Structure formats: structure tokens, C-alpha cells
């Protein structure tokens, strides 16, 4: 079953149309890689899924439920959008960790606040703290950060920071985890550790949408690849097919740049 269905998403900033008409589905447990040259609209697409941008047209459905329909203002409410965001996790290119909190606290903060809200002002939410912390610890351990939990972001390398950011997104158990060029801000020798972590998530069938410029990685880890060009999906298919054997001329030109060097 498709956990995510994106239909005819359109997004414009003023006069520039950034996403023209984007539709795709994502199966439960699958990873989809989104590739394309800079400025093609990849980040905007992920930002639309996370409601950081509001699409001008189209429908976003998760598990059959319409989360957003550009034509239905009832789906645009600020308070509901906040809840709907929790279907998605987001890992940013620039990590965006909270500098004043330890690695562990970065991971637990949002869960704590949500627990607090559930208990509506009563102090009982504290009982959940231990559960939240244990869960966070086990995720950080999976990320290979068991010995870094009490360090602050500035004390961590870029690769470690990005792994904390992945743990932070995972802690809320999103249906779909989005990555926006998770290794682009890293020194080359640090990309491996982050890609390994994402690969292990794929092996555990985490549903993911990954914007990346690491073609070999996309080919090996993703089930499907989407090639986005100028706000349109030009080519889409099995990862190995698209990357090894692109059918469209634009895809061929784009991929040629990666095989040359």
C-alpha cells in the first residue's frame, strides 16, 4: 500500500514556478531517492511535504488520509498542520541541531513537549520521561552515538551532528522520513558514516524520501529514483534502472556529469 501519495503538487514563489506538477507515491517500507540539478525544486518538494511551504496546488495523502488539498481550505488550518507534520520527519542539510541542548536532549525535547501537552498541565507527564529517554538512548545507540549522548552539538563532528539529527527525527516515529542532501554539508571523509546509518535504516524498511547527490548511494539504497528537472518529474523508475540506464535525454545529461569525474 502506498503510505504517501503526492498528486499534482504545484508551488510558485511570486512569478517563478518551482514545482509544476509533481505526482508520485511511496510504498510502505520503501526508500525513494530524489535527484536533479541544483534549483530543480528538490528542497521545495520536501518542504511542501513537511508543510514548511504551502503548495499552490495539489493533494498530499498519507495512509489514505488527505492531509492537504490546495482546493480545500479546511485542510490548511495552522493547528492541524502542526499535528500533520508529525507524519513526516525531516533531516536538514545543515543539521539544525539545538545548540543549547545535549545530543540526548535534542532527541527527547519534542517528545517531552508532546507528552506535556497530552497531560494538559498535570505533572504526570514526568512519568513518561524515562520511557522517552530510554527510547532516545536506544536510537542514539543505533546511530553509533552511545558515547556522545551528553555532548553538545559544538563538541560533535559534522557527521555525528547529522546522526543526532537523524535520531531526533526518528524519535517521533514519523511515517515518512525525509532527508534533504544529508551529506552535502559534510567533509568527504564524514559522508560515509551518515550514509551507512541511512543504509541501515533502509535495511530495516524505514520509509524514506532522500534528496541526494550521491548517485552510487541512491542506486544501492533506494528502491526507486525520481529525476526532477525544472519542477517536473522527468524520469522515474527502479533505482538501478534509472541510474544505470536512464531513458530520457535530460536524465542522461544530468547523470553524465557524475560519471565523468
Amino acid at each position: 500500500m502506498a503510505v504517501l501519495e503526492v498528486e499534482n503538487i504545484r508551488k510558485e514563489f511570486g512569478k517563478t514556478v518551482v514545482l509544476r506538477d509533481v505526482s508520485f507515491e511511496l510504498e510502505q517500507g520503501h526508500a525513494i531517492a530524489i535527484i536533479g540539478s541544483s534549483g530543480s525544486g528538490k528542497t521545495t518538494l520536501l518542504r511542501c511535504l513537511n508543510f514548511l511551504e504551502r503548495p499552490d496546488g495539489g493533494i498530499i495523502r498519507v495512509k489514505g488520509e488527505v492531509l492537504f488539498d490546495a482546493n480545500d481550505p479546511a485542510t490548511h488550518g495552522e493547528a492541524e498542520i502542526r499535528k500533520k507534520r508529525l507524519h513526516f520527519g525531516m533531516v536538514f542539510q545543515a543539521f539544525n541541531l539545538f545548540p543549547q541542548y545535549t545530543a540526548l536532549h535534542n532527541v527527547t525535547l519534542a517528545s517531552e513537549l508532546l507528552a506535556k501537552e497530552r497531560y494538559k498541565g498535570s505533572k504526570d507527564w514526568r512519568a513518561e520521561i524515562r520511557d522517552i529517554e530510554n527510547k532516545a538512548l536506544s536510537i542514539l545507540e543505533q546511530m553509533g552515538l552511545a558515547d556522545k549522548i551528553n555532548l553538545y552539538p559544538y563538541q560533535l563532528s559534522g557527521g555525528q551532528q547529522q546522526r543526532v539529527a537523524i535520531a531526533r527525527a526518528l524519535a517521533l516515529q514519523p511515517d515518512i522520513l525525509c532527508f534533504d542532501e544529508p551529506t552535502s554539508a559534510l567533509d568527504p571523509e564524514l559522508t560515509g558514516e551518515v550514509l551507512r546509518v541511512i543504509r541501515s535504516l533502509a535495511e530495516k524498511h524505514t520509509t524514506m524520501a532522500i534528496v541526494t547527490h550521491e548517485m552510487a548511494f541512491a542506486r544501492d539504497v533506494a528502491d526507486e529514483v525520481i529525476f526532477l528537472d525544472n519542477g517536473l518529474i522527468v524520469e522515474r523508475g527502479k533505482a538501478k534502472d534509472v541510474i544505470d540506464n536512464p531513458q530520457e535525454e535530460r536524465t542522461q545529461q544530468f547523470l553524465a556529469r557524475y560519471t565523468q569525474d
Partner: protein
Amino acid sequence: MDLIIVSRLAEGFFLNCKLFALTLLFALPLGLIISFGSMSKVKGIAYITKTIVWVIRGLPLLLLLLIIYYAPGLIGESSPWGTRVSGRFTAATIAFVINYACYFSEIFRGGIQSIPVGQTEAGQVLGMTKSQIFFKVILMQVIKRIVPPMSNEIITLVKDTTLARLIANKEILMMAQEYVARGLIVPLFSSGLFFLAFIGGLTLLFGWFERKLDYFRV
């Protein structure tokens, strides 16, 4: 030096301290509100707020003080400040609060806008509310960034309190000047020691606070 002189100076300095404390008490929250106004998405509010801040920061504090003290009496029937000491002090406090709230608001605005938008977005995608994002994510980073400019402004405030004597508040320099008129120069120097001690203490406090916030980096 005479004990009487010291106690007179201390009495004057107490007024400086009171004005200092009251200005901080009111100007800090008011400054935060003004900073939100100047960052408002409603263009009209932002425009009006920014104009007010520009005017207040563009005028000498002394002029503001004189306007607030004299203008209401000249325009209206009688001065709302009355003829009593407390009225003069209230007028001075109001002028100081308005002036410093505008200065603080610019520091707050600069601090808040210097936090990368990625911090807000990270909070949003984690399902946080606007107020959770402000209080749990942004505020601490802002505080850390504004400690140095705030320290400067607060130290300037300590010294500015001496301006209150121009609407006849008996602050420390006014006391000292009375002795100068009698041919005694030492009290003037002694009053300087009060300021050096007070500002020395503040400097230590700010240093301690900065070290307290050293555990993270923005």
C-alpha cells in the same frame, strides 16, 4: 573625608540606583514587546514601531527628559508631576524607561533575527508550537548573543542616571556639586568612586553570566 559628606553622597547614589533598577524592571519587558512590534508581519505595526524607535533613539535622552517633565504642564492645565519630589522622580523614570526600552528593543531584535531560520524550522517539523519554539529553542540562544551588547547598554544606563538632576532629582552628582559650590572638590572625586564600584560589580556579574552560558556555542 567627612562622614556626613559620604552619607549625603550615598543618599544621592541611592536615587541613581533606584532609577537604574526601575528602568531595567520596566524597559526590559517593554523592549521585548517593542522588538516583536518591529518584527511584526503586519506591515503597519512594524512601520509605526520602527518610526517610534527611530525618533526616540534619535533624540538626546536629556531632551526627552525635559520634554516629558515640562511639556504636559505647558500643554495642559497643570503639570501631572506636581511640585513634589516624587513627581520629578516619576517623570525621570518614564523618560528613562521609554528611552532604554527602545535601545533594548533593537538589541533584542538583532539577537532574535540573528538566529538562523533553520532553528525555527527544526522546531516546526518536530511539531512544536510557536511559543514552544520561542521559549525552548530560540530564547536561550538570543540571551547568549545579547549579553555583550546588553552589558554595554546597562553600564551606560548607570552613568546616564546622573542626567536626572536636570529636572531637580537629588542624585549623587547634584549632592557633590553642592560641595563644589562651597569650594570642596573631593566629594566630586568620591562620587566617581561610587560609580566605579557599582560598574565594577556589574562587570563581574556580566562576566559570571557569560561564563555560565559557556556550556554551548551558537
